[in-house]
């Protein structure tokens, strides 16, 4: 657009920006004598000089981004660590601090009516407008305080057992994987070491047994495998264990089924850590005697015994405490409460894992014997069981069949 076509305002603006506008000239002429007060000059210039003389310690430029990045990395690492570990996650979860108070209130509420009635009977005429506080005070006087305390204690035990049961259920998938891998490994190991046991069908790797009866059937094979390779064998003519007495699908049995035999060690550790009240079985017995007794015990159902025994111990408290008032809590775990504690100990001992050197030796035997498939399967199981173990060179070069 040429200057002729521009609006008058545009031409005026151009003149002003170029310093040709009469208004601008008039303003400059009018304001040129206005100057800043000279007394301020000294103060400002002195401050400027002092600022140069005493330079403030400046942080390097990389300081802030590096600090932010380090903080983020640290926080992320801690969060991931917490998120991976279910036990820690459970501990980090907001604790139900009001459980005890709530139970106390429930117990008091349940006892208040009867106590009030008793008090009424004793007092004769009804007192005017009895309040809840009055009822509570009557409870404290008439109902024995020890009884209330005992009831609260029983309920808190039941809640603790319930929490333990939930945490075990959360661990179930991980345990199932470990159990399946170890079942497979034990089966392969036992195949070479004990010929009669080698004919027993080993459970397929990665397929946890879905139901309690299957768990009880596969348990002997697993236990035989674990014992044949690295421990003295149980009697060969031991009868197969009868079906487990657990008929209802209780959580304890469901947990025990996929775990199998080899997962018993981890669970045994858990049992020792989380059930301090549980007395340990006498250790002076030899393993042979223990295994013979375990196989002879009709109520034992293989690998599931370790879990069900503990579950019964834990859940048994809930059964005894809450059976009259809260049957829904006790019903899923009630059958498992009948297993015995020493049997769980013995069973977990029986499934103690072999040292890695025995695995290596057995894999080599299988490989040298030409059974590459079995050697490979056992090697895979070994890697799953000992992921940090540095394999010998000859086994590292073992190719899948």
């Amino acid at each position: 657009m040429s200057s002729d076509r521009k609006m008058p305002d545009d031409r005026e603006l151009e003149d002003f920006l170029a310093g040709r506008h009469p208004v601008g000239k008039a303003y400059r002429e009018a304001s040129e004598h206005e100057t800043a007060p000279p007394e301020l000059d000294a103060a400002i210039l002195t401050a400027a000089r002092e600022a140069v003389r005493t330079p403030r310690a400046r942080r390097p430029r990389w300081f802030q981004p590096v600090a932010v990045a380090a903080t983020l990395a640290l926080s992320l690492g801690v969060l991931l660590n917490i998120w991976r570990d279910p036990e820690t996650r459970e501990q980090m979860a907001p604790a139900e601090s009001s459980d005890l108070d709530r139970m106390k209130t429930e117990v008091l509420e349940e006892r208040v009516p009867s106590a009030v009635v008793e008090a009424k009977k004793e007092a004769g005429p009804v007192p005017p407008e009895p309040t809840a506080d009055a009822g509570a005070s009557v409870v404290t006087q008439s109902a024995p305080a020890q009884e209330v305390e005992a009831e609260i204690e029983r309920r808190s035990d039941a809640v603790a057992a319930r929490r333990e049961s939930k945490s075990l259920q959360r661990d179930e998938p991980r345990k199932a994987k470990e159990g399946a891998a170890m079942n497979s490994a034990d089966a392969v190991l036992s195949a070479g070491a004990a010929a009669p046991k080698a004919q027993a069908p080993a459970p397929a790797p990665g397929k946890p047994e879905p139901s309690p009866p299957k768990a009880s059937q596969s348990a002997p094979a697993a236990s035989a495998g674990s014992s044949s390779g690295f421990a003295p064998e149980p009697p060969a003519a031991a009868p197969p264990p009868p079906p487990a007495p657990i008929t209802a699908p209780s959580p304890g049995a469901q947990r025990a089924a996929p775990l199998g035999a080899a997962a018993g060690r981890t669970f045994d550790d858990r049992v020792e850590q989380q059930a301090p009240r549980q007395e340990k079985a006498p250790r002076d017995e030899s393993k042979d005697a223990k295994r013979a007794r375990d196989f002879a015990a009709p109520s034992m159902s293989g690998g599931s015994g370790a879990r069900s025994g503990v579950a019964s111990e834990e859940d048994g408290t809930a059964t005894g405490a809450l059976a009259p008032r809260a049957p829904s809590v006790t019903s899923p775990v009630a059958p498992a409460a009948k297993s015995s504690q020493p049997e769980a100990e013995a069973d977990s001992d029986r499934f103690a894992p072999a040292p890695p050197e025995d695995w290596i030796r057995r894999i080599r035997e299988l490989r040298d014997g030409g059974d590459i498939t079995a050697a490979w399967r056992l090697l895979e199981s070994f890697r799953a069981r000992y992921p940090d173990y540095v394999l010998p060179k000859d086994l590292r070069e073992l190719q899948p069949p």
Partner: protein
Amino acid sequence: MQRYQRGDAAAFESLYRRHRDPVFRYLLRGCSNRERASELFQEVWMSVVKSAAAWEPRAKFTTWLYRLAHNRLVDEYRLARLPTDPIDDELPVAAPEHEQPEAAASGAQRLRRVLVAVQGLPSEQREAFLLKEEGGMSLEEIGTATGVGRETVKSRLRYALAKLRQELSDVL
């Protein structure tokens, strides 16, 4: 400014001498009170001294300096509750009022009328006018200093010039 950052105090003095009077006039036109303008002037330059270490040559020093001054004036408007509402640019410019035509002959009176006319501009138009006249800034720089766009600055300047021309038509 970069020299001052490196510790050259003489560089700051050079900057100060160059911008001292225009900044003072800009502040004086903004608050129309010499004492208050002096205080604001000192605050602005103290801000320059304190912020010198963090200054980065992204824009001209002049733009940065007048932005500091502009912010001080805005704070002053808020404290004094002076009208800072945006101007309705669609309104027609008022007709010229020649209250004292006979006094226009006097030179001193003429200059005073110019200053009074500038003082009477709406604050946004006055700022744009002063930033051009005192700071010698371009449209983009004025927009950067006042936080508005280039077209807004143009519009404000157009209306300011139109109003001043009509107010001072008898003395120009």
